[in-house]
C-alpha cells in the first residue's frame, strides 16, 4: 500500500480527541495533588492550607522549607492524616481500575470488582478473623486483613476453577459461578454475623469499610500489589479495546483471548483483594467510577484506565473526608457515603448524555 497522502479528516478528529484526554489526565493529576493537600488540612485540628503544603513539600527530596510549624502539627499531617489520605486514594484507584477491567473483559456494564467472589470471600475471611480468639501478624498483614486477603483470593480461584470448560473460560459461566458462590459465602457471613454477639458492631463497621485504622505500614504492604496490578492492566489497555469486539473477532485480530482473560483477572483480583483486606468491602466506586469516566471521556481503555485511576483516587479521598468530618467526632462508614455522594452525580451525568455509553 502506498502512503501518498497524509490523512486529514478522521485522524485529525481522532487526534484532537486524544489531545483533550491527555490534557484531562494532566488536569486530574494536578487536582489529585490539590485534593491530597486539602484532605490533609481538614480535620479536628484545622491546619492552614499553606502549612500543610509546606510540611508535605519539605518531605520531598531536594526541597528544604524553613520550619514555621510545631512538631505536633507535622506529626498530625504526616503520621495521622497523610497515610489515611494516601490509603484512601490507593483503594479508590484500585477499585476503579479493577471495575473498568472487569467491565471491559466481560463486556458487561454491570460488572464490578466484587462480581466474581472477591467481596464475599474477603468478608468471610475477615469475619472469621474477628471471631477467632487470637491475634497475630504475618508479612505485615494483621490477622483480619490476612484472612480477608486469603478469603478473597480463594473465593475467586474457586469461581475460576468452577467456570472453566476445557481450555476455555466462558464469561457468562464465570459471572454466574461468581454470583452463585458469592450468595453461598454471603449467607455464611450473615449467619456468622448474627451469632457473633458483641463483636457484631465491629464486623458490620468493617464490612461497610473504613479508613480510620490507616497506617504507613499498611500502605507499604498493599502498595506492591496495587502498583504491579495496575501497571499490568494498563499495558494491556489497547488489547482490551480489541476485546470489545467479540472474542472470536479478537482472536482473528491476533489476541490470545484465554491468556488475556487469565492475566487481567489475576491482576484485577489481586489489587481488589489487597485493597479490601485492609479497609473493608467498599461498594459503588468500582462500578460507577468507570462508567462516569466513560460518560465524560469515552471508552478507549488507554485513557479510560488511567483516568479511572485518578478519578477513583480523588473520589475516595473526598468521600473519606466527608465520612470523617460531617458528624465529627463520629465517623460514618465510607460505604454509606460513596453512594450518597456519588449516585446523584452519576445520575446527572447519565441524564446529560443521551448516546450509548457501553
Amino acid at each position: 500500500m502506498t502512503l501518498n497522502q497524509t490523512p486529514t479528516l478522521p485522524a485529525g478528529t481522532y487526534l484532537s480527541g486524544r489531545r483533550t484526554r491527555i490534557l484531562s489526565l494532566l488536569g486530574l493529576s494536578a487536582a489529585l495533588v490539590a485534593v491530597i493537600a486539602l484532605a490533609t488540612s481538614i480535620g479536628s485540628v484545622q491546619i492552614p492550607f499553606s502549612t500543610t503544603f509546606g510540611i508535605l513539600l519539605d518531605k520531598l527530596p531536594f526541597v528544604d522549607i524553613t520550619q514555621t510549624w510545631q512538631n505536633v502539627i507535622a506529626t498530625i499531617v504526616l503520621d495521622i492524616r497523610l497515610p489515611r489520605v494516601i490509603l484512601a486514594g490507593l483503594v479508590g484507584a484500585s477499585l476503579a481500575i479493577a471495575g473498568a477491567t472487569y467491565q471491559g473483559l466481560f463486556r458487561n456494564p454491570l460488572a464490578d470488582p466484587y462480581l466474581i467472589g472477591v467481596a464475599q470471600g474477603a468478608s468471610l475471611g475477615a469475619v472469621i478473623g474477628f471471631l477467632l480468639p487470637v491475634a497475630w501478624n504475618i508479612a505485615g498483614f494483621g490477622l483480619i486483613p490476612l484472612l480477608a486477603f486469603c478469603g478473597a483470593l480463594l473465593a475467586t480461584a474457586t469461581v475460576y476453577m468452577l467456570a472453566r470448560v476445557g481450555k476455555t473460560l466462558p464469561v457468562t459461566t464465570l459471572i454466574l459461578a461468581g454470583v452463585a458462590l458469592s450468595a453461598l459465602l454471603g449467607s455464611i457471613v450473615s449467619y456468622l454475623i448474627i451469632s457473633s454477639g458483641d463483636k457484631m458492631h465491629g464486623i458490620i463497621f468493617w464490612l461497610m469499610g473504613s479508613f480510620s485504622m490507616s497506617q504507613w505500614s499498611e500502605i507499604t504492604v498493599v502498595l506492591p500489589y496495587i502498583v504491579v496490578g495496575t501497571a499490568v492492566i494498563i499495558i494491556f489497555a489497547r488489547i482490551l479495546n480489541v476485546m470489545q469486539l467479540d472474542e472470536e473477532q479478537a482472536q482473528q485480530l491476533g489476541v490470545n483471548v484465554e491468556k488475556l482473560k487469565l492475566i487481567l483477572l489475576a491482576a484485577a483480583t489481586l489489587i481488589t483483594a489487597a485493597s479490601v483486606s485492609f479497609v473493608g468491602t467498599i461498594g459503588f466506586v468500582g462500578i460507577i467510577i468507570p462508567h462516569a469516566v466513560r460518560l465524560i471521556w469515552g471508552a478507549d481503555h488507554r485513557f479510560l484506565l488511567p483516568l479511572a485511576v485518578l478519578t477513583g483516587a480523588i473520589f475516595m479521598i473526598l468521600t473519606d473526608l466527608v465520612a470523617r468530618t460531617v458528624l465529627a467526632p463520629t465517623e460514618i462508614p465510607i460505604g454509606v457515603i460513596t453512594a450518597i455522594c456519588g449516585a446523584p452525580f452519576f445520575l446527572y451525568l447519565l441524564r446529560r448524555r443521551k448516546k450509548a455509553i457501553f
Partner: protein
Amino acid sequence: MIELEMQKVTLGYDHHPVLEDISLKVTPGEMVGLIGPNGSGKSTIIKALSHVISPESGKILVDKRDITHIPRRELACMVGVVPQLPLLPSTFTAFEIVLMGRNPHLGLFQSEGKRDWAIAWQAMEKTGTDELANRYVNELSGGEIQCLLIARVLVQETKAILLDEPTANLDIGRQGEILDLIKKLCTQNNLAVLAAVHDLNMAAQYCDRLLLINERHIYAEGTPREVITDRNIKEVYGAENCVYTHPVNGLPTVLLGAHINKTNGK
C-alpha cells in the same frame, strides 16, 4: 504468498461432527467460493482456518505450517477474516474499528502511529467508508458495517483473506463494488481468498473455483461451470431445472423457475 490447506479435517462442536474428512487447498492469487445450504458448515471452515476452533482430526496448514503451532498474533498477520455481520461495540467510531485491524502488527508496548492511521484511512477510501470515519458504529447500517469490516481486513495486510458472507447485507451496487475490489486485490497482490457465499450467482461470477458442501462432505469441486449444474443444484438444494447460461459471459446463472421440488436431497 500464503497457501491455505486442509488435510482430511474433521470439524465439530462438542464431538458432533459438522464436517468430516475435508481436504481443500486455496493457492495464492486464487479466489475460492464456499457454497452449500444453510448449516452445511461454511462458517465452520472459516473458523477453523482462523483457528477459532481446532480440528478434531486431520491437519490444517497455513503457509505449510500446522495452524495449531502458529502463535495467534503471527497467524493474524497471515490470515484476515471478515466475519458475518457481528455486533460491534457502540462506543467506538468507524475509524477506531478499522484501526483495530493494525492490532496484530503492534507489540504490547506499541501504539498506532502515523503510518497505521494512513493505512486505515486509505482502506476506508478504497471501500467507500471514509465519510463514516467519525460516526459511532451503532449509527451505521448493516451494509456500512460490512464495508467497514472489509476495510479492517485490508488494514490487517494479510496474504490470505477469509470472508463469511461478505455481501449478504449489501445492495446490488455495493455487492459488485466490494467483490470487484476483493477480486482485484486477490489477483494483484496474489492473495489467497476463501469466501463463503450464499448467492450462487455472485459465487459463479467472481470465484475461480467453487467448493459445494453438503451433508458434512465436499459434494463437488471445480470451476463454476463444473459445480453449478442442474444435477448438483437439484441434489443439494432440491431446486430443479434452474441453471441457465449468462447471456454475456457464459457463466452459469441460477434463476428460480416455476417448479421447486421441496424434498431435499437423495
